[in-house]
């Protein structure tokens, strides 16, 4: 029995319709699953493929020094390239090697044949620190398998000038030592972010809903107070002085006493910041002016005299009987320079650097014969609280040391301790502390915190001065300041100093013993120091402190440090265009 044709046709059509609907239903369910239920997974996969997140590196801030009134670049950034090869892609190894050797020169690796021939490797560095011009020349050869990776490096056009003040940037792009270390965060800036859909060539496209464009914030361009001409001459004068004396180490600082700005800081031995990896003794990285506290010796007598004058217990012509030694409790303190015995003035004591004179001042701060607790409190108040000795000055150079001035409240802060402190022993101070305190003594009595930051260079190339650090006014009276300047001027004239006539220069020598491993003073190793100011009778224009030392060497302030001071001082008079009087 056969079905009628019409009925058969209707069943097939219905069957086909059911099958089609069934297939469509499968598609719909599958699409629903992919597009709705599993939506996030596929969006995420697509983003991974198309959405790129690129870091926009912030440029490290540059460092400027002053050239009189004009800022000049002392540290810059330069883009250099690391050249690498993919040995599996290289088709003309000989040509690659010849090109790299001829273009990169000394920056190419020695074993190029070996590196290019490593067929089991995909990445071999063949040259480093290649300049942009060299990279462009290499690219012109269109050699397969060669790649370039741009990096930024610090450039020091003035070579080793102010090396310890600047510091350097290590392989991890982190500032080390000096200003680079202290102001690393400000100099680094903040990297930006570019998140965007990109094409196959990594070109960012504006399509997409998750694009982010956060520009990089470049580091601050710091302008130092360091004057490159003064710095250069100071380094030269110090090197000449060391060559003359045979000393192996030397440091110098020059400050503007009217502002606290540091104009130069020099330390020898030094190093080239661009070649910091070649330095064998890490001590060369330290800026000894701020990091190495020491017993300053007799230059410290200016602080004691200043304290005595300001409290009114002495005048320059006040007298005492000098017997070349003085007893403090169970100890006898003697003069280094003997023979100026009898009734002499405090001015004489300063001229001949007599320890007995300073102990006498300390006793007069007490009851006249003892360095009482009250006397010690007064001395500590002047040294520590007013002149800022034994505490961080806040100078913007990494690794500053606070030093130590023992308080009368401490166990060791007794009369004997203070009897030695008043002539520069038994306390540790840095040169920057001493120079800053002395600046206050010769500027009329205002303590300015020492600084190396003059300001910031904005994007238009305009210098924005740094905010002025708070000053401590009136730490000593104007009268004390004037008298101290006169006294140090007279002390300097005692031995023919070689100053230019018509100027008002003052200073004080210092020769300090060093301590051995057991904490005992050595007589065969002394540090020579000179501390002074220059300018006119009306105003001090600069303060200079010089220190020379050497292993197993007896170096004296008057013989070894003073000539360096004089050299720099005479040059400063010309450089600052100061007109002589008379």
């Amino acid at each position, binding site marked *: 029995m056969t079905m009628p044709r019409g009925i058969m046709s209707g069943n097939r059509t219905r069957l086909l319709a059911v099958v089609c609907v069934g297939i469509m239903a499968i598609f719909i369910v599958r699409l629903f699953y992919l597009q709705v239920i599993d939506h996030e997974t596929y969006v995420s996969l697509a983003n991974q493929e198309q959405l790129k997140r690129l870091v926009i590196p912030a440029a490290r801030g540059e460092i400027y020094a002053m050239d009189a009134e004009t800022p*000049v*670049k002392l540290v*810059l950034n330069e*883009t250099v390239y690391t050249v690498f090869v993919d040995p599996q892609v290289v088709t003309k190894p000989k040509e690659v090697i010849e090109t790299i050797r001829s273009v990169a020169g000394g920056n190419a690796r020695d074993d190029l044949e070996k590196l290019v021939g490593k067929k089991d490797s995909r990445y071999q560095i063949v040259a480093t620190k290649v300049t*942009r011009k060299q990279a462009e020349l290499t690219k012109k050869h269109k050699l397969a398998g060669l790649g370039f990776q741009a990096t930024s490096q610090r450039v020091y*056009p*003035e070579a080793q000038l102010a090396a310890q003040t600047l510091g350097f940037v290590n392989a991890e792009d982190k500032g080390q030592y000096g200003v680079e270390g202290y102001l690393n965060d400000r100099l680094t800036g903040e990297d930006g972010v570019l998140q965007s859909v990109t094409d196959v060539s990594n*070109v960012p496209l504006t399509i997409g809903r998750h694009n982010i464009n956060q520009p990089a914030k470049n580091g601050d361009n710091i302008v130092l107070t360091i004057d490159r001409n003064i710095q*250069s001459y100071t380094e030269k004068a110090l090197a000449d002085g060391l060559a003359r004396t045979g000393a192996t180490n030397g440091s110098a600082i020059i400050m503007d006493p009217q502002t606290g700005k540091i104009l130069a800081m020099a330390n020898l031995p030094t190093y080239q910041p661009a070649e910091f990896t070649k330095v064998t003794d890490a001590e060369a990285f330290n800026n000894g002016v701020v990091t190495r506290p020491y017993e300053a010796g007799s230059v410290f007598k200016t602080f004691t005299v200043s304290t005595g004058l300001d409290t009114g217990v002495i005048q320059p012509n006040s007298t005492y009987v000098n017997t070349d030694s003085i007893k403090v409790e169970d100890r006898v303190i003697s003069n280094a320079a003997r023979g100026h015995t009898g009734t002499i003035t405090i001015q004489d004591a300063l001229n001949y650097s007599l320890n007995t004179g300073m102990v006498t001042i300390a006793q007069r701060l007490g009851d006249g014969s003892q360095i009482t607790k009250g006397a010690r409190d007064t001395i500590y108040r002047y040294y520590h609280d007013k002149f800022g000795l034994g505490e961080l000055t806040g100078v913007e150079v990494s690794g500053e040391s606070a030093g130590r001035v023992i308080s009368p409240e401490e166990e060791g802060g007794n009369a004997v301790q203070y009897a030695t402190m008043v002539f520069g022993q038994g306390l540790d101070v840095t040169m920057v502390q001493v120079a800053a305190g002395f600046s206050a003594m010769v500027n009329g009595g205002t303590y300015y915190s020492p600084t190396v930051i003059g300001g910031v260079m904005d994007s238009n190339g305009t210098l924005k001065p740094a905010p002025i650090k708070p000053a401590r006014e009136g730490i000593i009276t104007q009268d004390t300041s004037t008298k101290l300047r006169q006294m140090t001027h007279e002390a300097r004239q005692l031995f023919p100093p070689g100053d230019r006539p018509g100027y008002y220069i003052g200073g004080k020598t210092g020769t300090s013993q060093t301590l051995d491993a057991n904490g005992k003073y050595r007589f065969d190793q002394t540090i020579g120091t000179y501390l002074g100011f220059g300018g006119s009778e009306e105003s001090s224009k600069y303060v200079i402190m010089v220190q020379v030392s050497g292993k197993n060497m007896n170096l004296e302030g008057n013989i070894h440090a003073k000539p360096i001071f004089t050299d720099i001082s005479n040059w400063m008079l010309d450089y600052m265009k100061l007109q002589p009087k008379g």
Partner: protein
Amino acid sequence: MSYQRTTTYTRHQGNWNRNQNTVAFASAVKLGPVTHTVLVALMITVLGLIYLTQATRATGYDYEAQKIDTKIAELSSQKTDLEVENARLTALETVRNSTVAREMTSPAATDYVRE
């Protein structure tokens, strides 16, 4: 003198309000549902094409912007190189060793201008 009404009345006459059009033209062409569907599909297609054109144009601008960015980066790099070169040429050591500096002589005597 007499006035004559000029307004043409249609089948709406007697049911019009102020500011309403009082003339209506009925088209002789009648569009069926298929035509409407095709027209809507065409409009959607045109709109899609417009969107695609604009999107492509925007992407084209991206490539232009990328070229300009690359050029800026290149010029900036050249500027940096020149600044480095300038700093090296004006460095104290370079100036000190220059021919001009080497040919300078020290004055026999110096004096100051008195005011």
